[in-house]
């Protein structure tokens, strides 16, 4: 094999008294794609941040071209050809695409910015990524996937020998993932060393040359990716047998609890009608941008919407999210970082925020809150120190906390948007079991997901959305991946009378 370009040897990392990485070794070779997998909180992001100079190691060495180096900052690492794309977006939301890509390395002509040159380069880079965001669009107006592409374009601009990507595909659709993977292969063939994490093991299997598996802050397996199949990877990660990812479906559903007719969310969705029954899990499939999130945000009073909504037979008007909760309807956001959790606050304050009324007569009952947190930590297997601010929890544990928070307010109708984004496979299984149990307890559940397998495996019934409309409904065995894709792309015959054919 070639000489390694970048390696960690015996690296440990502590936050305060707690050690989260214990003597990690990892070796990256030029021209190879290396996947790092592990459970939530296993230490993948921390390892990557150390490799890319965002965080120092507490002990151990970083070897660049075989020589020990100290990466004093991310700027230092970038100067040495190491770029990292974070699990969370690292973009200046108010700046344009082009300004973001060239941030800190603006092209100049004399004292002035060379706008045309930067625009042209930006367009080039994005075209390579099959992304059609205009260079002068403000980043905050972009979709998640476009933002991810901008992040990648930013890294591509820098002459990168080592590209580190922390869950780059978590927010991408399958098509977008394919584009990204193609780009990664190009980079690899040019000799770049690529390190990435993903909780989607099929992706790992498809693209990784080398594989490292971490559990609880230590490397438990490393070697050629071809040595393990997906099932073995999952077992090595979780440390136990993982089978039957999805719980058995329900056989009995109750009466209709939610009836939506002619719901429209201006600019995003039109004429949405469906019913939801007690004890049922309704899956919502569709491409990113098909208006799934917006439809349900509209329903939950988070955006202006029109249409008739009945809950348990009674017509209701929902203009604000708190009204939705009063009617027992709750929407769990897909965007845990900016809409779901207060990143600067601790777990307790986050957990009880939505159900605070349960903990306050006149005064807040903090010991009851603490007890609720104990319960949530146990129920949802949240790993991380209790006193840590939520922004420092690993991504998957944040998601579990968000879930726990929503459940605490005890809604009857729950809309869960991307329930397992960034969650490891063992936890996914737990989550699915949990969602199913909620349904069995008589709650009605809507699951919006971009992961086709998840929608199919979890739902009793699937609605497919396309361009802001319901393109069709699929039940039972008819809900196949193929059928969903056809409806989502507009090439299929709908099972129910459809509004548009192509």
């Amino acid at each position, binding site marked *: 094999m070639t000489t390694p370009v970048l390696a960690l040897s015996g690296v440990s990392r502590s*936050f*305060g*008294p*707690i050690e989260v990485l214990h003597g990690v070794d990892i070796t990256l070779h030029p021209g190879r794609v290396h996947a790092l997998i592990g459970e939530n909180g296993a230490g993948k992001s921390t390892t990557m941040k150390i490799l890319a100079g965002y965080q120092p190691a507490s002990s151990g060495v970083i070897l660049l071209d075989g020589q020990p180096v100290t990466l004093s900052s991310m700027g230092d690492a970038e100067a040495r050809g190491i770029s990292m794309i974070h699990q969370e977006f690292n973009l200046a939301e108010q700046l344009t695409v082009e300004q973001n890509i060239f941030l800190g390395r603006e092209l100049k002509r004399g004292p002035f910015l060379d706008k045309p040159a930067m625009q042209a380069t930006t367009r080039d880079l994005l075209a390579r990524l099959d992304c059609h965001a205009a260079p002068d669009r403000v980043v905050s107006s972009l979709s998640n996937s476009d933002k991810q592409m901008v992040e990648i374009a930013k890294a591509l601009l820098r002459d990168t020998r080592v590209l580190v990507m922390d869950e780059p595909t978590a927010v991408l659709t399958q098509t977008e993932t394919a584009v990204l993977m193609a780009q990664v292969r190009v980079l690899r063939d040019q000799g770049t060393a690529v390190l990435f994490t993903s909780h989607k093991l099929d992706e790992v299997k498809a693209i990784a040359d080398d594989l490292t598996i971490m559990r609880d802050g230590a490397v438990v397996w490393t070697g050629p990716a071809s040595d393990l199949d997906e099932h073995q990877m999952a077992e090595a990660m979780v440390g136990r047998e993982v089978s039957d990812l999805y719980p058995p479906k329900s056989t009995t559903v109750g009466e209709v609890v939610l009836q939506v007719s002619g719901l429209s969310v201006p600019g995003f969705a039109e004429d949405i009608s469906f019913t939801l029954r007690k004890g049922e899990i309704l899956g919502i499939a569709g491409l990113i941008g098909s208006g799934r999130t917006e439809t349900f945000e509209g329903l939950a009073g*988070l955006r202006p919407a029109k249409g008739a909504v009945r809950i348990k037979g009674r017509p209701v008007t929902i203009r*604000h*999210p*708190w009204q*939705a*909760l009063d009617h027992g309807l*709750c*929407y769990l*956001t897909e965007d845990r970082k*900016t*809409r*779901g*959790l*207060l*990143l*600067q*606050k*601790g777990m307790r*304050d986050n957990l009880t*925020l*939505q159900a*605070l*009324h349960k*903990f*306050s007569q*006149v*005064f*807040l009952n*903090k010991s009851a809150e603490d007890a609720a947190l104990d319960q949530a930590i146990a129920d949802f297997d949240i790993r991380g*120190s*209790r*006193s*840590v*601010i939520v*922004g*420092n929890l690993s991504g998957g544990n944040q998601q579990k906390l968000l879930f726990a*928070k929503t459940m605490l*307010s005890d809604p009857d109708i729950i809309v869960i948007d991307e329930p397992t984004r960034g969650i490891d496979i063992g936890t996914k299984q737990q989550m699915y079991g949990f969602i199913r149990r909620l349904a069995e307890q008589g709650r009605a559940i809507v699951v919006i997901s971009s992961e086709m397998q998840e929608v199919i495996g979890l739902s009793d019934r699937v609605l497919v959305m396309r361009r802001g409309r319901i393109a069709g409904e699929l039940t039972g065995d008819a809900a196949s991946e193929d059928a969903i894709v056809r409806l989502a792309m507009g090439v299929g015959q709908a099972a129910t009378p459809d509004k548009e054919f192509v």
Partner: protein
Amino acid sequence: MSDIAKPPRQIQMGVIGPILALVILVAMGAAMNPNFLGWDNITNVLARSAFIGIIAVGMTFVITAGGLDLSVGSMAAFVAGLMILVMNKALPTMGVGVPVVLLGMAVALGAGLVAGLVNGLLITRLGIEAFIVTLGSMGIYRSLVTWLADGGTLSLDFGLRTFYQPVYYGGLFGISWPIIVFAVVVVLGEILMRSTAFGRHCAAIGSNDQVARYSSVRVARVRLLTYVMLGVLVGVATIMYVPRLGSASSATGLLWELEAIAAVIIGGTVLKGGFGRVWGTVIGVLILTLIGNILNLTDFVSPYLNGAIQGAIIVLAVVLQRESKPGH
């Protein structure tokens, strides 16, 4: 479980910092002038702190919820003017006595409430930046009081003033009313912030109003309430203030808003919102008042430099705050 999120040294600094500054100031004052720790001077300092302090407690909630109110100084002047005007008008029919004073107090509280409500509604209903709205209302109230006073000074009827004066100068067990009211406001404020859903909601909205909204918090209502509460507290402060001088003019309450905001920030509340502490605000107010007091008691430094020293302390407080931020 151990504290790993909060780097011990830095957070300590955020908590200890203001207290330490206060202790140092007191020690300096005591060293410079033997009268400094005398009962008279202490009550004087506390009574002077009371007006700004009462307002600053309200401001703590506004800032914690991610807002700002620049209008409180002018609002106090306007409320004082209106109060004096109404009391003078009612005097011939009601005569000097408790009823007319109660009427004046009701007017002050009512006017404060309405003024806060107007600010709050403009900010929450129309979605205009708090800075802009209150910059506007600051100008409006200031010019209203000038207009009410016809460019001069509105004075409370002399007889009534003598009758009303005990509200500032009198008290219980040798402690004057403003101090007592200030203390009550602080205790209630601290409890409200620390131990009620309202306080928690303010902090949540200030740290990320989107998250609060998605968590079914009634964001607009909580925000509105912080401005209304601040308005009412401006009314309370004015009730204490009017008997002191018995007059109001366009110079009344000048720069109070800045002193109140400064006290809040010195006390460790985060200017961008998301975290507030009422007791810190009290310390902030005391620090600001003490600086003036010490400069007056010694001829070491010119009292004209009061503003400069206060300014330096404000900047220092923010520097400390930044260091105690988690993450970096």
